[in-house]
């Protein structure tokens, strides 16, 4: 079972929820940090890292001796990653999507694809948690290949928890795609609600079932809860706004460790999700 934890708006508590779910689980679990631009789950899990894998993409390299400066590669590239100047072809590798069109079209085979590192995957263990984290290198623009590589580690029939990045576009979609369930963490403010609605639209399009966690409950207004009730969206948990909880988060202490009574609540969230999934598939 794959549960992804997403939010639309950043800073609503995705990492808090994802890490606490993993710690509370009674079985072995894989925790995937797919927020590869800003991975934070390691701060709370503190796993022992056993291995690393470098993740790269293929980008074109022009052999100047073979190149006849016909410019076909620059015209076929849909991403402006290649440009022609009077005596050479320039490659802007950060714009490249690695589609391979340029090397295919080159009439004189002057283009080789070479691996360029985009980031790293770290693999570790902590108690019942197999921890897999992707991290985008500084200055790189495209996180998708790293997210895909992290998800390659998914073992079928295991409980998998994915900490997804904020937003509603490609990184969030790639992270939540093929999940059995998506847990949406929101906060009770107009910002939280506006982004929650956008995220729900995305999940509907991806055909993924979802439920909501309201974090910092009591801080803002009632409209998020009303919205969920009106639209029959299950609210699986509410975490009140308390300075003590905020403080443990600040120090990198998981809520279930500072307040062990939450473990039972998180376990209940997992069983509730299982029920929803089996009901939906029935």
């Amino acid at each position, binding site marked *: 079972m794959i549960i992804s934890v997403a939010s639309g708006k950043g800073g*609503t508590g995705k990492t808090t929820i994802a890490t606490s779910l993993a710690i509370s689980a009674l079985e072995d679990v894989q925790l995937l940090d797919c927020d590869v631009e800003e991975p934070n789950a390691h701060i709370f899990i503190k796993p022992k890292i056993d291995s690393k894998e470098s993740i790269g993409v293929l980008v074109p390299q022009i052999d100047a001796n073979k190149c006849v400066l016909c410019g076909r590669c620059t015209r076929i590239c849909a991403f402006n990653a290649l440009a022609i100047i009077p005596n050479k072809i320039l490659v802007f590798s950060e714009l490249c999507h690695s*589609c391979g069109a340029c090397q295919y079209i080159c009439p004189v085979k002057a283009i080789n694809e070479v691996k360029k590192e985009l980031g790293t995957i770290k693999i570790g263990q902590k108690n019942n948690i197999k921890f897999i984290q992707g991290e985008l290198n*500084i200055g790189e623009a495209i996180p998708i290949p790293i997210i895909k590589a992290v998800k390659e580690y998914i073992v079928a029939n295991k409980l998998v928890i994915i900490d997804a990045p904020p*937003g509603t576009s*490609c990184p969030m979609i790639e992270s939540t795609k093929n999940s059995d369930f998506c847990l949406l963490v929101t906060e009770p403010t107009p910002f939280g609600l506006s982004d929650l609605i956008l995220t729900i639209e995305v999940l509907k399009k991806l055909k993924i079932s979802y439920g909501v966690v309201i974090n910092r409950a009591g801080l803002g207004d009632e409209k998020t809860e009303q919205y969920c009730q009106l639209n029959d969206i299950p609210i699986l948990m509410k975490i009140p706004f308390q300075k003590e909880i905020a403080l443990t988060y600040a120090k990198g202490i998981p809520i279930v460790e500072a307040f062990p009574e939450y473990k039972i609540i998180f376990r209940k969230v997992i069983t509730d999700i299982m029920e929803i999934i089996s009901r939906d598939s029935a």
Partner: protein
Amino acid sequence: MKQIVIISGKGGTGKTVITGAFAALVCNKIIVDCDVDAPDLYLLLNPKIKEKNVFKSGYLAVIDKNTCVKCRKCQKLCRFKAINDELIVDPIACEGCKFCYYLCPINAITLQEKISGEWFVSETKYGQFIHAKLGIAEANSGKLISLIRKEAIAIAENKQYDWVIMDGSPGVGCPVIACISNTNCAVVVTEPTLSGLHDADRVIQVARHFKVPVKVIINKYDLNNEMTITIEQYCIDNKISLVGKIPFDQTIVDSIVHKKTIMESSNMVLRGLIKQIWDNIIENI
């Protein structure tokens, strides 16, 4: 004309609240919401849309079933696994690279221009505002950000505005790079948590990689004084100017709930603090 962008690395640290306050405070400027994935600034500024435009992000390959001879060349060579066994293109997976279009030996593939969102030029009581909405499950937010920035700069030059003030998105990848490049200052809003500092540090490295000057604001600083001291030390060690510290204050939450900027609240201390922070930001840029 100078460009200021508000970013954070970590989400939810207060970018939009602070940008909203600057919108209300600063004169002769244009405001841009560059967080096209999850835009929220419109909630505070209550814009009247004056001009609506579609965002054409690129192309989507479409295979004509009647012409196709099922050679599967396109399916084999598509690096994005966007073409399934029935030879139908998945519009979410297709990145619009056009490779299949060039490959097809019998021209059975056409390219459809993809509409991936909308962008708006609006009026607010605080002046002009450019914002956008990415379509549901659409990609290419970086391209949309570059487009609305270009538009904002053109308007600012034409109307001789002093400032382009931009609300950025979380993260360090393509949308962030699209909104910070060539700006005069990136203001990084962080919070006194381990995650806040970890993420601020990464986005500061990105800003420096692109040679953008950085200044820091610590928001909700009094939620964890110990961590605030750590961040202050980080700023000293990295020679970054700390332009202000904003306390956690229920009036800030209340103003969000009432969809107002904090400059409209009755909290004079807070308003004075925002003014001081802005003055610190524009010093020496």
